[in-house]
């Protein structure tokens, strides 16, 4: 008889984990295809259309980059908290608060030139976003309240605050009753790069990404952060400032998500309206985990999952597939990759027994 036993790997799997990753992706695509068949949609056409309309033209690639920006910023912050084993799933709410902060500045100082207004908007977005991130951190440290639930509840609250503002005191009187603020003055809109549809937010992402890698690799604080992430108990024993790190990381994470909200309100929409909330904060969790919390890989994964969103828009238009299919694929990919992680950590041994 054959007996299977599981043994922990001594050496890391290396390139083999790429193989596992693609196998997991293939599994997720297969299951998605089966679900499409259940709804009488052509699976191969749909999945091909998904990939092609996301990455098949320069126009689509531009779209991917535009959508990758908020995902990247949110996910960089989320990844940072995951490193400390603090489960910040509140990027969605921090994003909303960032958009609110930036909008407040844009509506309050419409007469300012762009070189003072845009930095003020960025600052306000950082403040509101990091406030929303720091609340759960403080509750967790002072009262031991579970941060997963607090961040998630603050998502709902943040979105409702946004609703309250755009349905109420910030509603544009000339909007014919639609819930939206009036359009931002041109000085409050982040400019586009050359004659592309990309905006300078992309440059901000690049700078933040590089800074983050340098910070994690070559500063004392970055080292402490990585050490705490590896083993919280040992790091505490070495008198690393765990509490301070938690608050710092949550505030930074909130500020980054807030920047994403700022860019989305300023560059993409040019005003604040409820449709700004499209679940980037939740996609960011998927990205952060897929990327194994490494800034460069986060950039690549953000781009790929942005592609999923771009492709989904075509599926909706051409095949009438509900937008929820995108969430199905995100969930499946994450589940499959999580399960696949088993093969990078363990080996299966087959033994013949008599």
């Amino acid at each position, binding site marked *: 008889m054959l007996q299977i036993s599981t043994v922990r790997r001594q050496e890391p799997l290396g390139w083999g984990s790429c193989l596992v990753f693609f196998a997991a992706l293939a599994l997720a695509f297969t299951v998605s295809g089966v679900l499409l068949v259940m709804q009488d949609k052509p699976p191969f056409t749909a999945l091909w259309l998904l990939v092609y309309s996301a990455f098949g033209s320069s126009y689509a690639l531009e779209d991917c980059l535009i959508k990758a920006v908020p995902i990247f910023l949110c996910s960089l912050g989320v990844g940072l908290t995951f490193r400390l084993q603090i489960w910040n799933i509140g990027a969605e709410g921090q994003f909303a608060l960032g958009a609110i902060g930036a909008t407040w500045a844009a509506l309050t100082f419409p007469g300012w030139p762009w070189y003072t207004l845009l930095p003020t908007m960025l600052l306000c977005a950082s403040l509101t976003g990091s406030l929303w991130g720091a609340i759960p951190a403080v509750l967790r440290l002072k009262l031991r*309240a579970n941060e997963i639930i*607090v961040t998630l509840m603050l998502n709902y*609250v943040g979105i*409702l605050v946004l609703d309250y503002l755009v349905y109420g005191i910030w509603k544009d009187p000339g909007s014919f009753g639609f819930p939206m603020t009036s359009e931002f003055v041109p000085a409050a809109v982040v400019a586009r790069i050359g004659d592309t549809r990309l905006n300078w937010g992309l440059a901000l992402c690049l700078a933040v990404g590089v800074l983050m890698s340098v910070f994690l690799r070559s500063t004392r604080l970055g080292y402490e952060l990585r050490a705490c992430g590896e083993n919280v108990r040992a790091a505490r024993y070495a008198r690393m400032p765990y509490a301070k790190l938690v608050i710092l990381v949550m505030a930074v994470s909130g500020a980054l998500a807030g920047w994403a909200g700022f860019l989305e309100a300023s560059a993409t929409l040019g005003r604040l309206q409820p449709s700004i909330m499209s679940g980037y904060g939740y996609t960011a969790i998927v990205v952060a985990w897929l990327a194994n919390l490494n800034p460069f890989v986060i950039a690549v994964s953000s781009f790929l999952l942005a592609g999923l969103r771009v492709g989904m828009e075509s599926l909706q238009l051409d095949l009438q597939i509900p937008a929820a299919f995108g*969430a199905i694929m995100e969930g499946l990919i*994450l*589940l499959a990759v*999580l*399960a696949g992680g088993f093969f990078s950590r363990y080996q299966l041994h087959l033994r013949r027994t008599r």
Partner: protein
Amino acid sequence: MTPEILLALLAATVQAGTPILYATLGEILTEKGGILNLGVEGMMLVGALIGFLTALHTGSPVLAFVAGGLGGACMAALHGIVCIWFMGNQVVSGLALTIFGTGLAGFFGTPYIGRTAPGFDKFSLPLLGDIPVLGTIFFQQDALVYFSFLIPPLLWAFFRYTRWGMAIRAAGECPAATRAAGLNVLAYRWGALLGGGVLVGFGGSYLSLAYTHLWTNGLTSGRGWIAVALVIFAFWKPSRAMIGAYLFGGIMAFQLRLQAMGTALPSSILLMLPYILTIAALAFSSWRSERTHAPAALGVNMEPSE
């Protein structure tokens, strides 16, 4: 506020609390076995959809309720495959399950938005329903509410007096010792996970079968997460889960009543109440308790033996 309105409000409280009660009890059962399942929100949505579709196509609410429970269990099985078999991170797997479940409900449910299905109607229990005040609040409800009254005592007795219940608790507290005692830890964890999945699925199908009778997108609106928070608030005790669930049912019923009466408060502020209360309840109960009541091995995967 007249007594009649207050009674109606309290009866609405019990109804609004019931789906949260099912889900909280399900998560308690799961977590007692040491498995942290954050997919409750997604599982409830899938349970709600499957319950609704079954009721629509078969016309049998009872069958639909059972199907909703099985739907919850199927989702839980996914979590089990990822976490128990493949030892994936339980937090992330639960989040993935919520994303996946929300997607499934939206994908298969979109064509049915606004459709109604047969469900459970309210009826007064003989004798009990005639008790003044208490009868009006608790015993003039639908069958699923009565069924939910039975589960907390059963679950309590299950953990306290049965061999299986004690083995599940052991698997959640100290899996290594449990295995050394010759029990199959993973089997008990699977049992707790799937049983919990059924209860969570029940909670979801209560929403579509008795609470609304109608399909809309995002039916649960965070109730699954509130249930996860209530497990902590309840110190993993079924009796306290009942208190917590009705507390939240009360807030939801109160907020609906206020909206219907037309107050000066904007609806977005009213809708915030349950979420803010969740944070407050969680912070309060975590702060008040000296020790953590969580099962010691909650969320920790079991390493394979040689």
